[in-house]
């Protein structure tokens, strides 16, 4: 008997120990750093305080090898701690930032998606059902019913940004209108009583009555159908529950309908809003990264003219003034940047009043890594989606070595440069193998020349365009005339370009000039030198697939082609050596550097780089009906989706390459024949063939690393340093760390009304050094009264030293006795994210 009990007890103990262990976290090992926040901060500061490395003689990337593998995000932090990987480039949500800090890891912080409450604005067809959110004032009042700071702290671990306006918080357009944005944030700060006042005033007017603290309509409790997403990162579930509680405090009865995407979308997207199947929804939207131009956001996110075409937007009856300013912004109906700014300042408060969507949070996401790794990341889109990280990623104070990168997945779709995988994790591996004409600045969103030398941009007089850097020259002209012999279209039957003809004009012209030694120094990984033929092939491929007469016609490309053609006005190869290309377009941006990008014809096809020989091979396989670049055509014709790195495509491509070699084919000879010789063709094909035989794939590009091998089944990839890359490894070293700033304010705790009151502001780098005043674009400050209303907006005056400013509240500011606050925003040139500082004071007569 005793034995039986003993064994029963033993069994129970085993189970209990497993359950308890499952609830705990693994103990840190001795060699791991102490899991404290202080340790993390020290490590992070050290990471940013490192001096710029000494000049190097090394070419290509800093590392010898980068090994990529697929890792679950749940185990990413543990795997970095254990040394299994060095960095997890697929960022995790901000609710895990504490876990990263506790593990003593460094991290790259960037913007994720953004979440909000989306309301059904329709008046329901069934008159017995009331939709309170068809009332704009009630929607607006919901701004006061949401404590965004609470949500950020409790749900997002304090690591995200409370979001009030449609503009991405703290990014370029937000910073441009920061006084308006901050003023609105103060005005719409959490105030449930104020929300209740509005609801109590508006609901009876809509026919509802409050019975025992609950709103009733037609004698029945008014039940709000709330679609709450329970999938994804799980935070929308918590937001939904929080807001349901708030609505119940306002007297509503809430039917919390927990649904995943596939269950919710047929209702909020697919149903007629007037049917009343739903009242509100926990919406989420993709981030555009470091977007410098959000002027169309008002139309997209609120108005019935929204390009989204979803019924609920069509049902929104907006204020006519808001409708006009939103449409004008989206259509670019302004002539100066000041006018554009004024229109955004006008649209912002109107959008808050419209409140079709009440914004909650701009998610920040975090990519963790070992603190002995140095990685450049885009402030908007993080590590994976940025161009520069592979150029700068390295072990600190070390050249060479093998870096182990973990990411969410690999090879999700086939790789081909024309229309292959566009998954961000595949793109990250590809970006290490690629170069280009231009390099995207990860901190400003502008472009710098990579292989290009300079650009000259000419825009029509009156267009609101400015320039920020000196490699782009900006001109204006009353008329930008397209040369008659510029190529404007493609005749797929004759395989020749169609000239623009006389009398064609454009809004902008870009002249992109490349250095004289471009072809000598730039080599494809298979050993071939870059040539003008690569650029011309890129131009041909911009048209050919969308032409019915083409052997590679793909109807799926037509919509994108039509969008391109709607603004494209012509291209002309002015000179092949040195290479000079003119591009004409009706497309323009506020920054000349972004316009210059429109004149980039580098053989980067959107899904990867490809030499003209590799594209000729892919085209031949598609023309032969063996493969197709795009998934749609591949499915329709039941052929393989072209894959340059594996699968049945390889055999088809190799067969076509053999045929090209045998026939010394110059593709599109009627046009390419002018730029490619038979000798070059023979060399190109032979090099590509040799590359395939050595590496087992056709992914040959021009970047600092080359793709050495892939294991598609195990989902691993290995890239190795390209010693033939033209640039030294430290070319982009100045971008190693984000040039972000910290600001601290000092001043009197008591302000005397009617007297000038100065406050001092100190701006430093993240390492604590004074921030160069020349790199500070502007210091704005706002003064708030005790109600949180903005009563004064001023500009700081630069002091004698770097990063020193004085902010003076003038004597004539209408301060009222009581609490007040002064807040400063420091706008920087080298980084799109400003620094903030604030100080509270007491105003006394």
């Amino acid at each position, binding site marked *: 008997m005793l034995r039986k009990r003993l064994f029963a007890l033993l069994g129970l103990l085993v189970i209990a120990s497993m359950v308890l262990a499952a609830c705990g976290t693994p103990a840190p090992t001795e060699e791991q750093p102490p899991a404290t926040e202080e340790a993390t901060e020290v490590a992070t500061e050290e990471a940013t305080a490192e001096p710029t490395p000494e000049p190097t003689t090394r070419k290509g990337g800093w590392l010898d090898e980068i090994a990529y593998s697929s890792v679950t995000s749940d185990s990413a932090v543990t795997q970095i701690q254990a040394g299994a990987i060095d960095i997890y480039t697929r960022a995790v949500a901000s609710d895990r930032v504490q876990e990263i800090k506790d593990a003593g890891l460094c991290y790259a912080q960037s913007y994720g998606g953004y979440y909000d409450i989306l309301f059904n604005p329709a008046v329901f067809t069934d008159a017995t059902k009331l939709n309170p959110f068809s009332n704009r004032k009630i929607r607006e009042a919901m701004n006061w019913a949401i404590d965004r700071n609470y949500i950020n702290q409790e749900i997002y671990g304090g690591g995200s940004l409370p979001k009030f306006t449609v503009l991405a918080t703290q990014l370029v357009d937000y910073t441009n209108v920061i006084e308006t944005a901050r003023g609105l944030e103060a005005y719409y700060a959490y105030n449930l009583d104020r929300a209740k006042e509005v609801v109590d005033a508006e609901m009876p007017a809509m026919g509802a009555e409050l019975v025992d603290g609950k709103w009733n309509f037609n004698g029945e409790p008014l039940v709000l159908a709330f679609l709450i997403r329970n999938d994804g990162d799980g935070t929308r579930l918590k937001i939904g529950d929080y807001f349901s509680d708030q609505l119940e405090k306002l007297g509503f009865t809430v039917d919390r309908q927990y649904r995943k995407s596939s269950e919710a979308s047929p209702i909020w997207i697919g149903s007629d809003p007037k049917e009343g199947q739903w009242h509100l929804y926990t919406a989420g939207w993709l981030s555009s990264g470091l977007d410098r131009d959000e002027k169309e956001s008002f139309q997209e996110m609120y108005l019935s003219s929204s390009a989204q075409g979803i019924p609920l937007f069509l049902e929104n009856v907006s204020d006519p003034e808001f409708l006009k300013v939103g449409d004008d912004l989206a*259509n670019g109906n302004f002539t100066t940047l000041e006018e554009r700014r004024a229109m955004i300042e006008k649209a912002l408060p109107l959008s808050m009043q419209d409140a079709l969507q009440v914004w909650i949070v701009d998610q920040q996401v975090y990519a963790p890594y070992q603190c002995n790794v140095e990685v450049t990341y885009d402030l908007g889109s993080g590590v994976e989606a940025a161009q520069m990280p592979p150029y700068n990623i390295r072990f600190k104070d070390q050249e060479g070595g093998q870096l182990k990168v973990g990411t969410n997945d690999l090879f999700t779709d086939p790789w081909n440069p024309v229309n292959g995988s566009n998954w961000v994790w595949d793109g990250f591996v590809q970006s290490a193998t690629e170069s280009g004409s231009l390099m995207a600045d990860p901190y400003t969103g502008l472009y710098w020349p990579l292989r290009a030398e300079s650009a000259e941009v000419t825009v029509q007089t009156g267009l609101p365009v400015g320039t920020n850097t000196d490699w782009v020259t900006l001109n204006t002209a009353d008329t930008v005339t397209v040369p008659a012999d510029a190529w404007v279209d493609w005749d797929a039957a004759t395989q020749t370009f169609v000239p623009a003809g006389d009398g064609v004009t454009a809004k902008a012209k870009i002249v992109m000039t490349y250095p004289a030694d471009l072809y000598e120094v730039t080599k494809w990984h298979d050993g071939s030198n870059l040539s003008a033929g690569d650029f011309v092939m890129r131009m041909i491929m911009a048209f050919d697939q969308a032409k019915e007469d083409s052997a590679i016609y793909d109807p799926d490309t037509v*919509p994108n082609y039509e969008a391109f053609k*709607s603004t494209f006005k012509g291209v002309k190869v002015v000179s092949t050596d040195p290479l000079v290309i003119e591009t004409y377009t009706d*497309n323009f941006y506020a920054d000349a550097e972004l316009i210059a990008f429109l004149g980039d014809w580098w053989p980067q096809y959107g899904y990867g780089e490809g030499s003209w020989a590799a594209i000729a091979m892919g085209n031949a396989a598609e023309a032969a009906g063996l493969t197709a670049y795009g998934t*749609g055509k591949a499915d329709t014709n039941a052929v393989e*989706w072209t894959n340059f790195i594996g699968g*049945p495509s390889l055999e088809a491509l190799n067969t076509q390459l053999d045929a090209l070699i045998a026939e010394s084919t110059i593709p599109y000879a009627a046009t390419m024949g002018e730029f490619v010789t038979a000798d070059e063709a023979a060399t190109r094909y032979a090099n590509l063939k040799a590359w395939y035989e050595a590496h087992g794939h056709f992914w040959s590009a021009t970047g600092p690393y080359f793709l050495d091998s892939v294991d598609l089944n195990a989902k691993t990839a290995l890239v190795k340093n390209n010693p033939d890359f033209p640039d030294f490894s430290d070319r982009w070293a100045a971008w190693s760390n984000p040039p972000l700033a910290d600001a601290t304010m000092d001043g009197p705790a008591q302000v005397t009304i009617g007297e000038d009151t100065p406050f001092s502001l100190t701006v430093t780098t993240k390492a604590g050094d004074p921030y160069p005043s020349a790199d500070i674009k502007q210091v704005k400050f706002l003064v708030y009264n005790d109600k949180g209303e903005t009563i004064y907006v001023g500009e700081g005056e630069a002091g004698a030293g770097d990063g020193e400013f004085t902010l003076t509240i003038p004597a004539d500011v209408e301060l009222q006795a009581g609490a007040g606050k002064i807040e400063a925003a420091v706008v920087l040139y080298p980084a799109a994210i400003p620094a903030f500082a604030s100080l509270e004071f007491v105003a006394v007569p």
Partner: protein
Amino acid sequence: MATETITATTGQAKREAFAHTTLGRVLRYSLVRLVTLGVTVVIGIYLTILIANMGGYVDTIMRNEIRDNTTQSILANPAFRSLTPEAREKLIQEKIALEEKRLGLDKPFISRSIKYLVNALTLNLGRAINMNSDSGSRQVRLILLERLPATLLLAGTADLILFFSSVFIALGLSRRYGSLLDKITIALSPTSSAPPWFYGIFLILIFAGILHVLPFGGLVDSPPPETSFGYGLSVLKHLILPASAIIISSFFLSVYNWRTFFLIYSSEDYVDMARAKGLPARDIERRYILRPTLPTIITNFALLVISLWTGFTITETVFLWPGLGRTLFQAIGLYDTPVIVGSTIVYAYMLGITVFLLDFVYALVDPRVKVGGGNQQ
């Protein structure tokens, strides 16, 4: 006329006589069994198609997801920012239409469901809707075949070790009924209430996270070793934790089950008689216990072998093991009917064939069993 009648009667008699021969009985039984299994497979597959598509409602889900995804991707793409709102909306609508056509949503579900069924029954597995094989192909055949080796390696290793070790240890325990080892086994059998992935998480924490002696997951090191031998060793290293998780999760209950099963047979009269006759214990085990239990053992083994096809969905996911279980899991999440049906039809055919063949195997290993003799007295 009379001659014809006599001939017909004779023919009928011959047929009846043939029907009562062993061969006739077996053929008739086989035919009926095959038809029954065939109808079952057809019904099962069509039900799978209906369930996987929620009776056609998945079309509605997919249409709205296409609209949502297409709209968001175009609005978030800076390349389209400079288009006029009208041009952007036109682009969105055209892309939605193309995607719906690609996925076959321009055709009614009922016609697609029949096509899925016919393709499945003829083993024309066709093309996936959204999924690719690891090498990037849309062919369902390749999607399944490329994942099969990894699943066979994991599930085969784990299940075979589990099966044979359980049977032989159970046989030994049945001889030591009431011993300390027997009691420990009984006491630990509730540990099998936890699934393999549950143990997998512990094993990862201990051996990868803390001791750093085994990998967290995956099939092979990154980068993979360049030699075949090194690659093989690396795969084996990655196999240890997931296989151990599967074995640990079922080991004690499996031993307990077999031990109980053998105990029942050990207490049969003819076993007692053999013991009384003084036969050696090994002979008793082999001839008096194991042999009559062979049909059950073989059935279990056969079903185990075909179950390898389905893999271990969550365990493979926890260990990032590129097997069929994960593939099926992904296919369900993506509503990729051809992959779901492809996987199901292969399993259904294997199950049908196994069930069919087992009847014959029973007859071979157990003289008491006659194929098709169930109605004979």
